[in-house]
């Protein structure tokens, strides 16, 4: 049965019942057209994450490659939520650590949607809210006792942690801190992957020749760190003029040609598939007691429904943002993407289709339905200041990074 829109009632019934998951499967092609090369993420050793998969109707397994991992897809969904929040398209609790006003080389503002460990991240731990260390503040202290049976504070302050997972490993309970398993898993895999070759080279417009060197290290003066004058060069411990790099070649100062090389790189694929699953049992295990009162199934359902809607939102907004995964890896969907509601194994899934805007509306309705139950929601941005120690570390890091660039 095909259906166009997912209503709040249908969503609520799905969350309340025994349905297993919402799932979408999107077919993608390279933006450069079928057969164009794409570049998967490389792992240690310059390896791609290759695998074999069986496809229906094909006898032999096919070579596949991961184009975007589970963790990376989660990050993209969080960034899509952040973009929507900044554009005021969605109400979300967001904690921000603002490094402004500290005379840093580069001003930074980092939100909880960008932090690797979300609201449990060390940056928040090392920042101040209302003059107190975050975990000692009124908001932070509410996180100390969260767990699956008491997730209210996370719903209030960081609902994305309930979707993408969190481990409060550096809170007061250390390694025994609360763990929340993820409820959303998404991944993009390319099929019939064939590794290609890539070339690297540089043609210097100045045509600086190697023999024009050697270049020597100079004292830092007006930004130029090399000199041809060995008498004015920086000396090493033996009093000899110090060459740039190993032998003072102009290429060590990013001048001159670089000989073209050919290496393995990129893949061609027949198509890519993005599979996104939102687990409803994972949401159903969460409880949301209010103010030490007994658990109220009505409140639980409202919170879980809002979270399910937020998950759909995150997935659709990320899709809306496009699939520009990394340099030379942009994908486009080949057709409209539908969502399936997976019921019991012997039942036909129900199908829905909606846009990013539809999902935002659905989440808005779900939230408006949830808040009157008494569920808290930090709609206002919480602004934190980094501790002085953290500021100094960032300052030092920026200075060192700038120096190492100059020393090239």
């Amino acid at each position: 049965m095909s259906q166009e829109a997912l209503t709040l009632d249908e969503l609520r019934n799905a969350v309340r019942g025994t349905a297993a998951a919402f799932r979408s499967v999107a077919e993608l092609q390279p933006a450069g057209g079928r057969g164009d090369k794409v570049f998967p993420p490389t792992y240690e050793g310059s390896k791609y994450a290759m695998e074999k998969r069986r496809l229906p109707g094909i006898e032999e397994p096919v070579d596949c490659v991961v184009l975007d991992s589970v963790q990376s897809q989660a990050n993209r969904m969080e960034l899509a939520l952040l973009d929507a929040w900044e554009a005021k398209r969605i109400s979300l609790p967001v904690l921000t650590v603002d490094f402004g006003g500290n005379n840093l080389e580069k001003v930074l503002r980092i939100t909880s949607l960008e932090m690797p460990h979300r609201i449990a991240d060390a940056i928040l731990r090392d920042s101040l809210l209302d003059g107190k260390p975050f975990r000692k503040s009124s908001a932070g202290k509410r996180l100390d006792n969260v767990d699956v049976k008491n997730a209210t504070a996370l719903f209030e302050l960081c609902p994305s942690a309930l979707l993408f997972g969190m481990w409060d490993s550096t809170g007061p309970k250390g390694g025994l801190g609360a763990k929340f398993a993820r409820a959303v898993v998404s991944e993009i895999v390319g099929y019939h992957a064939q590794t290609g070759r890539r070339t690297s080279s540089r043609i210097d417009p100045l045509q600086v020749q190697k023999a024009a060197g050697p270049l020597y290290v100079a004292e830092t003066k007006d930004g130029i760190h090399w000199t041809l004058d060995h008498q004015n060069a920086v000396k090493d411990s033996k009093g000899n003029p110090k060459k740039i790099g190993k032998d003072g070649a102009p290429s060590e100062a990013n001048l001159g040609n670089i000989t073209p090389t050919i290496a393995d790189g990129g893949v061609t694929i027949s198509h890519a598939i993005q599979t996104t699953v939102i687990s409803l049992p994972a949401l159903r295990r969460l409880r949301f007691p209010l103010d030490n009162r007994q658990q109220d199934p009505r409140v639980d359902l409202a919170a879980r429904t809002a979270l399910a809607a937020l998950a759909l939102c995150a997935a659709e907004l990320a899709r809306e943002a496009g699939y520009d995964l990394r340099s030379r890896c942009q994908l486009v969907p080949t057709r409209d993407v539908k969502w399936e509601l997976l019921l019991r194994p012997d039942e036909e899934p129900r199908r829905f289709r909606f846009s990013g805007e539809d999902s935002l509306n659905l989440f808005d309705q779900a939230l408006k339905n949830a808040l009157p139950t008494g569920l808290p929601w930090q709609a206002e941005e919480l602004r934190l200041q980094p501790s002085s120690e953290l500021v100094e570390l960032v300052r030092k890091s920026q200075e060192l990074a700038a120096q190492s660039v100059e020393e090239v």
Partner: protein
Amino acid sequence: MFALGVHYLNGWAMATHPADREIPEWPPHPDRVFMALAAAYFEADEDDAERDALTWLEGQPPPQVIATPEHRRQTVTAFVPVNDSSSPLNKRKEPIMPAGALLIGRARQPRSFPMAIPHQPVVFMVWKNSSPPLRHLSALDQMASKVASLGHSASLVQMWVAGESEIMERKGFLKKALILEPVGDPISRFRLRVFGPGRLQHLRERFNANLRPTSPLWHGYAIAHEEEVQPSIPGSHFNPDLIVFRQSAGRRFGLTSTPLLAEALRATLMSHCSQQPPPEWLSGHRPDGRRSERDGGHLAIFPLPHIGRPHADGHLLGLALAIPRDIPRKDLFACLSGLFFDEIGWPKQIRLTLGRLGECVLEMDEGQTPRAALRPATWLGPARLWATATPIALDRHIKSRQSVRELEEIIKVSCRRIGLPEPQAVVPAPVPIFTGALSSREMPRIRRKTDGGHVYHTHAVITFPCEVQGPLLIGSGRYRGYGLCRPLLQPEVQE
């Protein structure tokens, strides 16, 4: 009949094998499923009906497991940001480059996430002779519907109580699936962690003490009706159900150490055999001390070398045992289970001490390793074309070393002697066929007991008139690792 079905919603399973954290666990072990149900019970209201249902379940025997074979994602190392420090400087006080969405650097730790991609992402666990009372059935179904993941939290699943007709209707799935039956002894190709009475209470106690669960029982599994599937493929008089030991510690050994290692392992088996003197099929000697002349042969020990790959160097990854086909595996278990397993069925280490040469520590392999040399399929075929990994020590004295025809005939007889069909062609060669293997001259010579002379060795490529199944151990040194053959053309090894 009672069954649980598991559907992996993303099409893959991310769960680490308990014996080797670099490889995925597939199929899921029954104890993992039990722990997932128990977690669902504990995380909810600890309903009495669910507790009673779990108590009933833990009293059932190990289930049948029905799952399709899998491929594995190449295990790669991802670097995940740490959370013990927010500092953008590393231990050497150097700036860490920002990566991803985070605008300041963060130290990262390596992690890998082994993953199995089954041909079809569904598994059934079937208790053929168990029928839970209706109240337990309802509670089990309720708990199953609460299970969100199996293994890593990213391994999202749907779990449910499945009916017999539902399973039988999945004809496409059943055609491709392996049906693993629990068998009487743990020395099996597959060994899975299972649960037993008291498991629920153990999990509760460990959780309350903030401790991880301890290992449960291990149980042997075999592929149901495997011989019926391939009844017509001839094989040697060795049982294709090999017992594989991987080297887990000690120095690296090459193929030249084969005779010493085989002898050391044999001596260990003999001394630990619960039946003394050890039976003829194990010792290779009759009760009066004379050499065995059993038709079915006796236990063979052979090396598992890394050969046949572009950079293979022939070093040994382990050793394997091949028992005679006519000896039931339970006899082997009866003799040697105390050497191989501890009281909960966990593999024990077997230390072989070789004096100045060092030590070789072995552990029974769980059948999950991706290393080709440790996978029985590498040595079993079936195939028509085989080549020697270790030289054949000829069964009899050769009149002329230049006589290819004579060598051919001797090798053909040796093949027939172990129950194989007569080869169609034999091509002897002094040099190895597989990269990394030793030449005939490099392999330690076997001395004849009669006159102290050396037994002639040769490599060979053997073509049979039809496919034959291994293990192929040919010639007079076959019980000590000589004459070990491998299919010359390796098909894609079923994972």
